[in-house]
């Protein structure tokens, strides 16, 4: 049984990583808005949805006119991203800004507004789609090139297995040691002990590799579809671009300045409202592109498609440390992988008694566990500091 578990690992993690990239892009929208406004933009899941739906319409409308699927995808990404960005900016202008102008200090008021905006957008898209097509479910067309499957080298699978085993062993060892320390009345783990645990778990990993070399270095049959490759490449490029924008451009520095201290930023000649608009634009664009990629992976989109990925991505943002951009990206990847692990292994371990529909239980249990140890999130600062 252990062998099957190990064999499954690379493909499960790869699937998780692909999904994780989508979560990461959505999570960035939550975290950036939180960074500048300290507001959870619950309408972000619907911003993602509008991108997904706009992408589907682009695909369907232009399918005949643009025969090349790659160009078609590029157009869908641009249009999906742009529509989502516009929706995000409108939500900010029409829902959040008026509240800021009135100097509302109650944190619950914007939250309720966000939920209201969410419902409004769902029904608005439903209305538009309903009037237009007499149905509000849309399908991404499938293309042979996108469905094509490629086999990945076994070595990659072996590396993934070894890395995962190492991390899992380390986590278990660390946790055991931590409990031992707590039981004997001391707190925390010293730097030296931590290094020792890393080495010990590496040794254990290599031991498993040697004993079970047949499985670890055997034929793992790791495959990937073209559309998954596209999702990873596009997400990675966008995350990289965002990182560059936030750290290397004037706009990026201004966004971080406003996030840290909006009042002082205005003394630098920065109009905080302009920066807030840009933040919604960037977050919205990323969310919209995530919507198109989601549609590419899962085909079916509709006005309510944003809810689940939205909640997951929000969780990812909290997991990474809300307000922290790198954290949101990492949180998304971690959550995607946990979810896939949960889905596969829970079914497997319970002999099918708990199917994939329970996949989130394991994922969220692990999340709660992580947050118990690091309430501020993986990359989050101690309370009181942000972006």
């Amino acid at each position: 049984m252990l062998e099957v578990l190990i064999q499954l690992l690379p493909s499960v993690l790869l699937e998780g990583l692909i999904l994780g990239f989508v979560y990461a892009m959505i999570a960035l929208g939550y975290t950036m808005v939180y960074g500048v406004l300290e507001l959870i933009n619950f309408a972000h899941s619907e911003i993602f949805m509008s991108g997904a739906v706009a992408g589907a319409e682009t695909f369907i409308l232009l399918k005949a006119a643009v025969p090349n699927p790659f160009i078609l995808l590029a157009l869908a990404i641009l249009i999906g991203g742009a529509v989502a960005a516009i929706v995000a900016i409108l939500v900010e202008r029409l829902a959040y800004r008026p509240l800021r102008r009135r100097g509302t200090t109650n944190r619950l008021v914007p939250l309720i507004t966000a939920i209201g905006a969410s419902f409004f957008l769902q029904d608005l898209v439903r209305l538009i789609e309903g009037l237009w097509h007499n149905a509000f479910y849309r399908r991404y067309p499938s293309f042979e090139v996108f469905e094509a499957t490629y086999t990945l080298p076994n070595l990659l699978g072996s590396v993934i297995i070894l890395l995962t085993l190492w991390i899992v062993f380390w986590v278990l060892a660390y946790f055991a040691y931590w409990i031992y320390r707590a039981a004997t009345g001391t707190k925390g783990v010293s730097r030296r002990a931590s290094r020792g645990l890393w080495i010990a778990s590496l040794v254990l990993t290599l031991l498993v590799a040697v004993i079970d070399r047949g499985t670890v270095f055997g034929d793992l049959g790791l495959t990937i579809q073209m559309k998954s490759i596209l999702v990873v490449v596009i997400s990675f490029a966008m995350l990289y671009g965002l990182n560059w924008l936030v750290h290397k451009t004037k706009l990026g520095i201004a966004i971080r300045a406003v996030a840290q201290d909006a009042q002082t930023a205005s003394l630098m000649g920065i109009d905080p409202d302009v920066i807030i608009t840009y933040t919604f634009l960037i977050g919205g664009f990323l969310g919209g592109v995530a919507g198109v990629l989601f549609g590419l992976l899962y085909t079916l989109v509709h006005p309510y498609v944003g809810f689940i990925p939205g909640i997951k991505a929000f969780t990812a943002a909290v997991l990474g440390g809300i307000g922290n951009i790198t954290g949101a990206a990492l949180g998304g990847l971690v959550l995607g992988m946990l979810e896939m692990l949960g889905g596969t292994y829970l079914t497997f371990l319970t002999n099918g008694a708990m199917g994939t529909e329970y996949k989130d239980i394991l994922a969220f249990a692990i999340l709660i566990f992580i947050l118990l140890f690091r309430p501020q999130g993986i990359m989050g600062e101690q309370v009181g500091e942000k972006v």
Partner: protein
Amino acid sequence: MKKVLELKNVHTYYGHIHALKGIDLEVGEGEIVTLIGANGAGKTTTLRTISGMIHPREGEVLFEGVAVHHLPAHQIVKRGVGHVPEGRRIFPRLTVEENLEIGAYLQNDRQEIERRKAEVFELFPRLAERRRQLGGTLSGGEQQMLAIGRALMQDPRILLLDEPSMGLAPVLVDVIFETVAELNKRGKTILLVEQNALKALEVAHRGYVLQTGEITLAGPAKELAQNEEVKKAYLGG
């Protein structure tokens, strides 16, 4: 002398608290003017009213002859008001260099930005050594230098300084006051708010004494320093 800044009968409130009760004040081109007063007198409020962080309920703030008191802060800054706020307010998670860059937010000419940065580094060599360090990890004195440097990156027509010597060791206090004098020598117009009245009156041309929201005394700095009341209240006898 050309007036850079003029306050006419300015009244500012925080809710029901009447913090400024009819302030009249002016700063001429090339002057150092100091505003001294006890804790809670309204010094910070005066500067905040000038830079648009809070708006007066009555009266006028004229910058180079134009009323600006209805404008938001970022637009007043654009006209040439540089405000070094109380408590420095460095962006803690931006590097020293990024703090300076953001000071020059309104400037698009890269060469000009580099020129100003070089000037700030020449004025405060300590900052040049620490350009990659996060603002929040600087010492109090370095943060003050950075706050002043950041405002200088705007190349403002007038520099508002809110207690730049607060919480600094005596040596650093001297450095800061020397810098203020040096900047003025290079042509900067400065409005200096200080608790350290003795030093402030030494470096300034003129001064105002603020008491619970009202100007009670005004005049050349040398005369104020000799004034019995001022001596008793602010100069320790």
